[in-house]
């Protein structure tokens, strides 16, 4: 074919440019999808209600959660005590809220510590493969399979059961879960072009880690964090059953349930075990729903 001058390329007229409507920034897209997902939205609302009740409840409740009138012990719900009173005459509603403050503090702080430590270790071990990674992943595997509650009982025996001790031990046993997830994400990110490009451009490791890897890892780790919160709250309950949980008279959902585990209470005094039971159940349910919601929202594959 003989060559000819290429056809003149007309400037595309303004009105012919495709409209902007279809393109939405990914952040807002994820948020919109999160809110449209019924489970996640309900979960978020329930979690918010629980947190508000736990933070402000004790302030507005007229009763001191730790002090009760023994003559009014085990009274069913009444106008004065909306959720009745416990075996020592303390107001159940005040105790559930105060207990919530303890359980959630343990849950969130332990999860926060575990996630932040786990993410950093996971990211570094994922990035620096080789001996360091092998050792770290061995430690992760071993810690992952340690029966947490038994270790806590031993530590409670030595250090004496207290909230800080519970938080530290939970955090030290829960971080491997987020570390494993972070490491997995980093291993896949490392192969991706934009990270290799950054490396080629000579950016220092720390810059790559904090500019590219951590943001890449965060969404997946947030999901893990919500499960860790649920884990910590449940473990606190199991630990208090074995006698090493939060110290009376301070309330926690775990020790409230533990006090209510007799047949008599189960059969005839539901207000002693329903409130803490429902509180744990609602919190764990909503944190997991939020976790699932976040995961579905940010999972790029499901945008299509």
């Amino acid at each position: 074919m003989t060559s000819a001058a290429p056809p003149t390329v007309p400037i595309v007229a303004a009105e012919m440019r495709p409209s902007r409507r279809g393109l939405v920034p990914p952040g807002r897209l994820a948020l919109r999808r999160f809110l449209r997902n019924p489970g996640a939205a309900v979960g978020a609302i329930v979690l918010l209600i629980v947190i508000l009740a736990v933070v402000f409840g004790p302030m507005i409740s007229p009763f001191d959660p730790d002090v009760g009138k023994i003559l009014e012990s085990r009274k069913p719900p009444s106008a004065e005590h909306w959720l009745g009173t416990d075996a020592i005459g303390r107001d159940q509603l005040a105790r559930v809220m105060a207990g919530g403050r303890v359980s959630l503090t343990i849950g969130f702080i332990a999860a926060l510590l575990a996630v932040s430590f786990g993410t950093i270790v996971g990211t570094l071990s994922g990035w620096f493969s080789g001996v360091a990674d092998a050792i770290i992943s061995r430690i992760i595997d071993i810690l992952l399979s340690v029966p947490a509650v038994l270790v806590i009982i031993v530590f409670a025996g030595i250090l004496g059961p207290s909230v800080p001790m519970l938080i530290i031990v939970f955090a030290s046993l829960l971080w491997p879960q987020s570390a494993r997830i972070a490491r997995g994400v980093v291993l896949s990110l490392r192969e991706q072009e934009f990270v290799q490009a950054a490396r080629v451009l000579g950016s220092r490791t720390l810059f790559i880690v904090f500019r590219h890897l951590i943001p890449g890892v965060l969404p997946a780790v947030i999901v893990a964090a919500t499960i860790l919160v649920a884990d910590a709250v449940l473990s606190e309950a199991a630990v208090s059953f074995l006698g090493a949980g939060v110290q009376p008279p301070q309330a926690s959902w775990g020790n409230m349930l533990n006090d209510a585990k007799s047949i008599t209470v189960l059969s005839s005094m539901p207000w002693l075990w329903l409130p803490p039971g429902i509180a744990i159940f609602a919190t764990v349910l909503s944190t997991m729903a939020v976790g699932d919601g976040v995961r579905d929202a940010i999972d790029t594959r499901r945008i299509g």
Partner: protein
Amino acid sequence: MPAAVLSLNDVTLDLKTSDGYVRILHDVSFEVAPGEIVGVVGESGSGKSMTALTVLQLLPPKARLTAAQIEFDGTDLARMPARGLRGVRGKKIGMVFQDPMTTLDPVMQVGKQIDEAYRIHHPRASRAEARAKTLEMLKLVGVPDAANRAKQYPHQWSGGMRQRAVIAMALVNDPRVIIADEPTTALDATIQAQVLDALTRARDELGVAVVLITHDLGIIAQVASRVVVMYAGRVVEVASTREIFADSRHPYSNALIESRPGAHKRGEPLTAIPGRPPLMSDLPPGCPFAPRCASPFKSERCIAERPALELSDDGRLSACHYRNESQRTSA
């Protein structure tokens, strides 16, 4: 041209999106005859892959086939119940997919996967009989030392080899039609030739009808006898390969031909079709290609009125008001 073995008529498909259904296939019609390779060509997003999936109803849950008449073997596949369709899939019509890396089950031996394809449709067949058929097909598509290689796993085969295995799998039940959805896109040039060779051998030795979906006009030129050009979910031109290259009657076909890398001179900038393929949910009123059309004959009519797919005076099928004019500006 011998009677068509498979013919699609007015296939119309909607896809559920966040804000309601969007039509992505508009009255797509074409047919294919035994021993013939028909190329379906178009940019990505033109609906050509969706058309391929519609034939065997392998559509994603979000898709809704609003209207279609898919004639095959005297029946309409669009109306066929699921059980009936299963009798067609893999037996009478075989599929070949784009990315060989993900089309095979990673944890199952290649040979076993092809045996499975055979034994699905021949339940009483013995293992040995299935394996013999598998090896026969593998040899046909050019896989060396088939007996041993069949015992290996997909990750131990190269991309090209895997695509040939997929073709063998599609052929194992002596289908009458093969639908290949961009079978060479994920492979580099040298391997492409081997895959195309396998397809042409299937056409010539087994008389199989092949629907070859691709965006690469070079492949069309090599193996396809007829071409269906699609743009924005519509068929815009159907013609023999020779007619398309010599005298395409639709500006989009011509633009495709122009932008082939081989068509320009060394040192000159590559020509590309300006603008972007339109969003299915936001089609302009007139001819969908109008905003990007560089045809000298382009007029107000193109923007106002949507051209239908009709025969030109000299029998050429095109969806352009100026179907009688040859769009091939350069010699």
